[in-house]
């Protein structure tokens, strides 16, 4: 009797345990089957065509995920093959022959071939092109279709970083059928296809099943637009977003670091954060005034106060991790008295008033308050005008209707923007333009580096902008998530290799 009872109890126990384990197994496998990811991004892209806009947010959604170029940039800044599986470069460095991947389809089902490459490159370099990085294609003389899977690009002069240039988001390959509607319905060749865009909230992508290469591990991805640092923190903590590759609230990182649910990644970006000045406007047209302003700003305090230490001081528009970097941080040491002297010399002993237009990111909003205070001490009164991102792109970037603004330039090796006509700094120095042309024509590495150093020195001497700091890349993501980039050598949130740990 007793044994019988015991036996029955055991059976019950066994069944119970099995059930419990089964349940546990079921929940575990439920966790394992999570096949999508939601990423937080701070700024909403104005549209989704990377070949027609300067906003980094476009590439942060589409680069490598939706659109691909002939080459692509890897997580550490290396050039990797993409739609071109191999290439040959002629002895004189002028002719590039690309062999294309086979069986590539666009998301709308049309075939990809050499004609699309010719179309895309010709479109980007044409006179009426709206490409934001036209100088990338400037040296291209002709693009010829040799065979359906072979393209020959002939340059007018050797270009040192041509393969890197082709890896930019602005050089992706688009199809003639869909090129005009890519802004709202992006159609590329990448492992993810565009799904839908809820304005102001999120952009979702879904896996493209006909992808030519290794398929993505994720079935879907949502990019959620969260500019407010409080909301970003809450979204991360609640699991509403799985990853925030550029987390906007550096002061909260400590909390994430001590929480085993999260991984905090600290890397580098190409983001030179500057106080941009309208070099054609009033007192700012005077180099002495701009130098005075450079002296008046306490950059170290700015990095501490606005970024909680997550940033590296810079002295010019150049990334400190680049081999051609030259340390110019000592050119304009923090010295309010010197600033006042320079202002007096320039005829502004009593200072002046100006506006400081700020885009939404925290480095700008917080930095703006500190800069306003710094400049007030030398007599310059700034009125802070907070702008939405789209407003900033129109008013400041396009219409150049501003005195001061703060923004981070996250494109790699972008000192050439100072040579552009009609760029929003309104800096016009023929000498610098010559220097950049010389740099573009030079292929010898050492000579290129030398020219880069000269370029850094020239814009620093002219104090075109105040070079504040190199933005650190502080990402936070779910500890179970793998495959996100630690550094940001190019503007991208590449999720093609992202997967959940088992």
């Amino acid at each position, binding site marked *: 009797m007793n044994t019988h009872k015991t036996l029955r109890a055991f059976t019950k126990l066994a069944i119970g345990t099995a059930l419990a384990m089964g349940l546990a197994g079921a929940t575990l496998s439920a966790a394992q089957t999570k096949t999508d990811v939601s990423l937080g991004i701070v700024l909403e892209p104005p549209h989704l065509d990377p070949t027609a806009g300067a906003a980094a947010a476009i590439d942060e959604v589409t680069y490598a995920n939706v659109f691909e170029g002939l080459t692509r940039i890897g997580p550490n800044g290396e050039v990797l093959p993409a739609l071109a599986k191999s290439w040959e470069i002629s002895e004189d460095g002028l002719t590039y022959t690309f062999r294309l991947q086979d069986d590539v389809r666009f998301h709308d089902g049309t075939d990809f071939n050499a004609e699309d490459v010719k179309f895309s490159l010709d479109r980007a370099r044409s006179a009426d092109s709206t490409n934001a990085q036209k100088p990338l294609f400037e040296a291209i003389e002709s693009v010829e279709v040799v065979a359906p899977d072979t393209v020959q690009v002939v340059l007018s002069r050797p270009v040192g970083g041509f393969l890197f240039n082709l890896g930019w988001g602005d050089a992706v390959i688009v199809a003639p059928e869909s090129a005009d509607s890519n802004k709202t319905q992006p159609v590329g060749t990448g492992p993810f296809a565009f799904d839908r865009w809820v304005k102001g909230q999120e952009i979702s992508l879904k896996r493209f099943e006909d992808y030519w290469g290794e398929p993505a591990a994720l079935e879907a991805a949502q990019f959620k637009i969260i500019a407010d640092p409080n909301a970003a923190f809450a979204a991360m903590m609640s699991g509403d977003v799985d990853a925030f590759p550029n987390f906007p609230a550096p002061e909260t990182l400590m909390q994430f670091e001590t929480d085993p649910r999260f991984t905090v990644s600290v890397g580098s970006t190409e983001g030179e954060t500057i106080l941009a000045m309208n070099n054609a406007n009033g007192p700012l047209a005077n180099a002495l005034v701009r130098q005075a302003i450079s002296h008046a700003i306490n950059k170290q305090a700015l990095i501490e106060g606005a970024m909680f230490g997550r940033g590296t001081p810079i002295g010019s528009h150049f990334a400190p991790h680049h081999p051609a970097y030259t340390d110019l941080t000592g050119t304009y040491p923090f010295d309010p008295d010197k600033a006042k002297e320079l202002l007096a010399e320039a005829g502004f002993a009593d200072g002046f008033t100006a506006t400081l237009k700020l885009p939404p990111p925290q480095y700008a909003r917080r930095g703006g308050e500190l800069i306003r205070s*710094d400049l007030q001490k030398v007599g310059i009164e700034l009125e802070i005008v907070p702008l939405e991102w789209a407003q900033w792109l129109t008013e400041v970037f396009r219409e150049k209707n501003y005195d001061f603004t703060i923004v981070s330039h996250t494109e790699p090796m972008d000192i050439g923007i100072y040579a552009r006509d009609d760029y929003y700094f309104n800096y016009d120095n023929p000498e610098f333009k010559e220097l950049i042309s010389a740099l573009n024509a030079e292929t010898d590495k050492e000579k290129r580096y030398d020219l880069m150093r000269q370029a850094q020195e020239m814009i620093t001497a002219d104090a075109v902008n105040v070079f504040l700091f190199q933005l650190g890349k502080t990402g936070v993501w779910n500890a179970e998530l793998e495959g996100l980039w630690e550094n940001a050598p190019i503007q991208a949130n590449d999720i093609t290799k992202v997967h959940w740990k088992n």
Partner: protein
Amino acid sequence: MDTFDTPIHPFRRAWKSRSFLIGACLATLILLAGLVSLFWTPYAIDNLNVADRLQPASWSHLLGTDQYGRDILSMLMVGARTSIIVALIAVGIGLLFGVPLGLIAATRRGLVEEVVMRVNDLIFAFPAILSAILITALLGPGAVNAVIAIGIFNIPVFARVARGGALALAGRDFLLAARLSGKSGLRITLEHILPNIANLLIVQATIQLSLGILAEAGLSYLGLGPQPPLASWGRMLNESQTMMAFAPQLALYPGLAIVISVLGFNLLGDGLRDLLDPKLRRRIR
């Protein structure tokens, strides 16, 4: 029984009304802080000094410093000034437009009343803070636009109070007497009706003041209120939110300031109603 019929002197009643007393104390504290900040604050709030940031409370900084090294007490004082100015002007807008509208509606009646009051209802039907967000989003963030946004929603409130008060007086003997003596409608309204509804308006103004302070804090919290370097409690709260883990006092102080002022003006309003309402005059203990 006799004592119940003897009106108690207002001052003595004030002393006996607990909510009036507490409300008056809290409101005075906030008003004083705002007033003093016009002439003096312990430190200048537009002088940021990162080296001094996040200091705990000490004798040199009574409430410590914030993330930019600003003295929190000074920030709170200027914040009080910002709140009160915004709320006061908004109440002023409400009185200036709402009272005449309400009086016109009450004296004219008919179609005029219908139109005025229905438009009022329309504005009133909108949740005030939502429309304030809409207005500041359209006009752009800033103190002036916050004042306009909050002010617009005070208009129907005062219009209703003024109309209701005026209608309650209609048909009273002293009004009939005034009319018989040949006074015009406008003069009767200004000389007889307005003074008689003044107590209602004062009570309502006090309550709207507290709502205005709350609305200003709400708008600033959303980044739509007064912009830096002007201090504002709402923005202080917003900015301190991500620092709760290591500097909770940054959120605590402006939060307390908002609570104190809203509670203060509300209690003051309640107390004033008790004091000024003739019907309640004998019931105060």
